[in-house]
Structures are given as structure tokens and as C-alpha cells.
């Protein structure tokens, strides 16, 4: 008998003691892991956001442009810097190969950041926090963000989006 030959006729034998212990421990551990996700979900504030709306790429670009016109306070290398009202809606457009616009947020305020794409899929990756979300065209993905520190934070793209993917960056500036 081996793993390469047929087993004996009756192979459904009861488990040994060690096997029972191992199996019990494994199952208990599996349940612990499972409950952890639920506990974190119910008790913590760091869940994956679940607010999503369908939106066309043109509509999202219009919303972003209006948002930029209304609240622009400056520019860096031609990219507008936008200071939205504290606690309001914020539009961040991903497009080949840029995060548009640069945002200036206030520490301790909660914003609703709308993420979407004008063309292909992108990856929102906020550094150095290292928070990552997938960004799709046609989907308005809303993330609630409360900056806890002041400073300048980069957004890079971590989903391959074309030959200039490694150039795609953006910024969030957090002030007191």
C-alpha cells in the first residue's frame, strides 16, 4: 500500500488521537480567524468602504472639473491645488498618468473622497500610510477619510495602467 496504489478495500478507518487533536485545533483556529474579520468589521473603523455608485466617466470628469474650479487655491507644475470645505465632498480623478487634482485637507476633518477613473483601472495607493484601493472607471467609490497628521502625502498608482504607469503620482497636503 502506498499513495500510488489502490488502498485496502476498507479504508474509512476512525481517526487516531493525534489526528483528532490536530483537527480540533485547526477548526477552532479557523473559526477564530473568521470571527476576527467580523469583530474588526463591527468594532473597528478601518473597514473597506462600501459606498459605491455607478457613474459615467464623462459625468465624473465634469464633477471633478466643477470641484476644481470652485475650490482651487493654487497650482504645482500646472496641477491645480484644491482646498475643499472641511467635511465636504472631494473628487479625485485617476487618469493616464496622473491623480487630479492635488488636495489640501484639514487635519481632523472627515471628507468623503470620491474616487473614479477617466480611462482604465488604476490603483489608489496613499504613501507612506500604505492604504490601497482599486479604482475603476464607471464606478464612483466613496472613501471616508479623516487626516490624523499634517504633512505632504503621496498618492501613487499601483495598478498597471499603460506604459506611463510608473509616472503616475499625486499628492494630498494636510494642514492644521
Amino acid at each position, binding site marked *: 500500500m502506498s*499513495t500510488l496504489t*489502490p488502498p485496502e478495500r476498507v479504508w474509512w478507518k476512525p481517526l487516531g488521537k*493525534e489526528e483528532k487533536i490536530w483537527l480540533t485545533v485547526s477548526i477552532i483556529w479557523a473559526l477564530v480567524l473568521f470571527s476576527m474579520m467580523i469583530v474588526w468589521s463591527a468594532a473597528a473603523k478601518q473597514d473597506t468602504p462600501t459606498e459605491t455608485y455607478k457613474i459615467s466617466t464623462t459625468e465624473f470628469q465634469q464633477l471633478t472639473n466643477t470641484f476644481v474650479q470652485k475650490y482651487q487655491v493654487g497650482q*504645482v507644475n500646472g496641477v491645480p491645488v484644491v482646498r475643499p470645505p472641511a467635511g465636504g465632498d472631494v473628487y479625485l480623478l485617476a487618469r493616464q498618468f496622473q491623480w487630479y487634482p492635488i488636495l489640501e485637507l484639514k487635519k481632523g476633518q472627515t471628507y468623503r473622497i470620491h*474616487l473614479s477613473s477617466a480611462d482604465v483601472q488604476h490603483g489608489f495607493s496613499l504613501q507612506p500610510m500604505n492604504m490601497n484601493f*482599486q479604482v*475603476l472607471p464607471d464606478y464612483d467609490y466613496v472613501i471616508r477619510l479623516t487626516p490624523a497628521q499634517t504633512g505632504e502625502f503621496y498618492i501613487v498608482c499601483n495598478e498597471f495602467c499603460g*506604459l506611463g504607469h510608473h509616472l503616475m503620482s499625486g499628492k494630498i497636503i494636510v494642514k492644521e
Partner: protein
Amino acid sequence: MATQQLAFRTCPTTGFKVHLRAEKLIVANAVTAVVFLTLGGIMALLIALTRWEAVHLLSADWYYRLLGAHGMTMLVYWIVFFEIAGLYFGGAVVLNSRLPKPGLGWLAFALMLTGAVMSNVMVLIGQATVMFTAYVPLKAHPLYYLGVVLFAVGAFIAVGLFFASLVVAKVEKRYEGSLPLFTYGLMAAAIIAVFTLVGGVITFVPALLWSLGIFKLYDPGAYRVFFWAFGHPAQQVNLAAMVAIWYALSSLMVGAKPVNEKLSRVAFLLYILFINLGSIHHLLVDPGLHTADRILNTSYFFYLAVVGSMIHAFSIPAGIEIAQRAKGYTHGIFQWLIKAPWKEPGFSALVISMVLFGFLGGVTGVLQGTMQLNILVHNTLRVPAHFHMTVVAGTTLAFMGISYYLIPLMVRRNLVGKAWASVQPYIYGGGLALLFFGMYGAGSLGVPRRTWDTTYSQSIVPGPVFGGEVNIFLALLGIGAVIAVIGGAIFVILMVLTLFFGKKVPIKA
């Protein structure tokens, strides 16, 4: 008697009755697999030397092309061709039976090869720089999608042939009672392969129509759900096939028997039932999915599939220990392990594969598959770190380990360069472990995967985004890759030498 007239020969080493027409198919599929492994390995070296910032070898364009080709060549072509060889071996040879309709096997082979070459050529000429995930609306040339579909159809036929061979063996009473555990494990893999391949067709046929302009729109969110309904179970095919090979190696190397057939078989059943759940762990930070879906699916339904792996993690080492103790290695707690055949490439490959797969691949997988932790991991280099421990150090190394026995057996030649073979798994595994730590470290600091350059010096909003410490990890990635590629090259060279120059073993009817 001339060889052509024989339907079967008896293998002098194992005593298996080998169906000669099955044998040819096994050799063709296995050799093709090794060719793809070689191509994929060359690409691996080039892209790894590009990510090593100090070397930064390729141009951006070529890095992206070769990265896409590496993923497809390795994860799909190398692995699936080898699995098909394994299925024919487990379905015909191990059961002392025959492969019905070998002609269909050749049709499958031709479709798979055509598809693989077609899609890879499109990637290499720059018409399909979309990575193997090909997330819409990033568009590739229609022939790319067609190639993938042809490959999937071919693989589907091959899997069907495997099921037919099981039926034939049963009907013709080629074996008594139940299937051997090895073939049972392969059958689990083949069942998962069926819904995997259906998923593949559901994903790629609309993509083909969309790239031809027949469909105007392919919803990017829906595509991701479809794609991972294919891409996720595809990895579980690899998992089940790898575990089946672990069992086979434990028997071949030390004569291990299944400790408890029932438990091991139930573990494979858990894979079949619960593994396809889990596909959402690729979509944990996507828009649009409900938290409850994410938690239930990504936990593999309360981690029941993970319990399956825990069972194998117990049963295989236990089987080895019992077999070794029966040989008289009973001194102390660990004599059985110390006296194990560490110089047999099959044994070292088995142990390294199990350790790296379990402790680095499996553990990181369960961690980053946790909904909340995934936010820190998604699309960083931690992701390829994880799967180079599962499909490379785990599956690929296990496949290499069994190749040292299977391929000489099937080509009827003795293995060339046994001494090199006995160090190969250590080199390959060691290099991969370094690669893992490099990728994992950089990824933990946020460095993205699939990105040619992470200095962002030419961007509109210029970097530096990452501190200098990431360069240490990226260098580790590069050094590990060089070592692993040397290990991979030793394997390929030994296989080629054996195929052409191995001492011939006479054939017996």
C-alpha cells in the same frame, strides 16, 4: 518485436504497465512545459534585474511586455502543460491502464500550444501589454484573447480525457477497489479545473468580442469578478495537484503510506467544495461589494479549505515519520528526520516545497486575505512575494522534484547529473526565499508591484515617494532572483541532457 506494435511496456523501476501512446503524450506535454519554464525563467531574470534599482536593466516598454509574458508563461503555460502530463500519468500509468482516444490528446496539445504561442507572440510584439490579468478597459489585440481561449479549450479536452481514462480503468478493471490517493488528488484538481476553465471562457470570450468591437462595453467591475472566478480556482488546481505530488513523493522517497486514507481524502473534498469561495480575496478593496460577501467568501467559507491544507500538513510528515521509524530510525525525537534521504532531489524538493509553501506562502495568504489587512497589501510587492512562495517555491518546486523521477521513466533514460540534481532544490528554494524577503519587505513599505521605476523622478508631482531603505529590499529581490534562476537553469539543463544523452533503459513488453 518492434516498439510500434506494443500497446504497453512494463516499467523496470516501478513495475507500472505503461501505455505507449499515453507515454508519448506525457513526454510531449512535459517537454513543452519545460520549454515554457525556460522562457519564463529568462524573463524572470530580466524583470527582476530591472526591479533591482541599482541595475535597472530593461526599458519600461520591455519590462512591461516581459512581465506580462512571464506571468502568463509561468503561471499558465508551464504549470498547465505539466499538469496535463501529470493527469495522463495518474489516469493511465498509475492505474496500469490506457488513455482512451490519444488522438484527442494530440488535438488538445495542438490547441494549447497554438493558443500559448499566439498570446505570447502578441505580448512580445507589444500588442498585448495588459499583464496576465488583462483588466478591462485596458485593451489587447483580439488574437491575444483568442490565444487564451484556444488554450483553455485545449486544456478542457485534456481534462475530459483524464476523466475518460478513469472510467476506462474502472470498467476494464485495471485496478481493485478505490483510486490510489495520488490519482484521487489529481481527480480533485481536475474537478476544480473544470469550473476554472468554464470561468476562463466566460471571462475571455466576451473580452475577445469586446476587443473586436462587437461588444461596445465590458463592465470593469464585472470583468474582475469573472476573471477571478477563473484566476482564483486556477491556483487551487495547482494546489491540489501539488499536494497529490507531495503524497506521491513521500511514497517514492521513503515508502510513506497515507496515515489515514479517509482524512486525506476528506481534505481533498474540502478543497473541491470550498476553494472557489475565496475568489473575492482579489477584490477586497474593490468598489461595489458588500462587507458580508467579502467576509464570507474570502474566508473560504469559515476557512474550511484551509482546514484541508492543515490536514495534509499533518498527514504527509506523519506518513514520512512512520515510514522512517519502521526502518529502525527510532532514536530520539528526530532521528527519523535526520536520517531522511536529504540527497535525493525528490525528498529535498518535497520538504522545501512544503515548508516554503506552508510557512511563507500559506501564512501570508491567510493574512493578506483578511479583509482589513488587505488594505495594506493590495497591489504592493507583498502580493507577488506571497504567490512566489505558493506557485513557485510550492508548486513549481514540487513539479521539479517529481520530474527527476517521472521524466527519466517516461523517456526511458537514466537521469544525467544526479549530483547536480541533489543540490538543485536547495539552490532554487534558497534563492526564492531571498526573493520573497526582498519583495515582502519592499511591499510592506508600500512599493507597488508591476511598476518599472518607483523613484517618480519624472512625474508631474515628483517623488521621492519611498525612502532609501526600499533599495536594500529591491537588491535582495534581485540577488534572490539570480540565485533562483541558477537553480531553475540547473533543472532545465539536467532535463535536456537526460532527454538527449541519458543512458537508455531497455524496453520490456
